[in-house]
């Protein structure tokens, strides 16, 4: 057996079964080195959160 996020379910359809795990979850994060101001990274973070608020990203997979 192995453990995968729900979004991976669409990637396989032969020979295996995907069963949800109760109260288990996986986060996706944006990561960066916070050593100095990075305007482009700030812009990216703004866009990421706008996109995440405006759409169901999981259904896009």
């Amino acid at each position, binding site marked *: 057996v192995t453990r995968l996020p729900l979004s991976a379910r669409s990637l396989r359809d032969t020979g295996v079964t995907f069963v949800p795990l109760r109260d288990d979850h996986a986060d996706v994060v944006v990561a*960066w080195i916070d050593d100095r101001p990075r305007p482009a990274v700030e812009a990216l973070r703004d866009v990421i959160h706008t996109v995440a608020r405006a759409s169901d990203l999981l259904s896009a997979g």
Partner: protein
Amino acid sequence: VSFDLRQLRYFVAVAEEGSLTQAAARIPVAQQSLSEQIRALERQLGAELFVRGPRGVQLTDVGTALLSEAKPLLSRADRAFERVRRVAVGERQAIRVGFLPSVGNYIVPPLVRAFADTHPEIVLTTEDLPIAQLVEGLRDGRLDAGLTRPPLVDDLATERILREPVGVVLPAGHRLSAAPQLDLADLADEPRVLTPRPSWEPWHRKYDQDFAAAGSPRTSFSAAAAFKACSRSSRPASA
């Protein structure tokens, strides 16, 4: 609204310095002019922003409320100005983003479209990478940001984008495959398959901790061939 950004900058400087004299030196501006602008702001709001004392100034409740609004507003204004300035001079920035293949299929396409629409002045390039290379890229500066899964390492700043449910992948016909839902404890006696441990130790540690907490202390093992057979395109969520 009749106040302007300059008045807000003056106000924030005074609030942060706790002193008109020091704020005037920091900006820099003549103290009389600074004082007049703060008074003008107070008139426009119909409330005092500071309590003036012999040793400086202290924010009133109204001043505290304005400070919490003014700082993000000024920050946003500065970013907008800088962005427009770059467009005006034809200067293009670049940002390089690494992502795990298992998150890229649903996050990267809408993100790239939205970023191109809102920030045409910044060239965004993406690269799918294994987790260890992604972290290495952030550390050595080849990447500016990464879309990945925790747990990571202490020297990276992170913000959660989304949280998704997790499931278990079982061979078809497995005794548990018809269950509508399972607990980790249900898998206590099952051989577990995941990527090789050196691929990213923090994931493996978390994976083992989760199973141990569920009463299944057996250390997970790597079986690359079996993993490929049941998971051709992804990697474990927190392994």
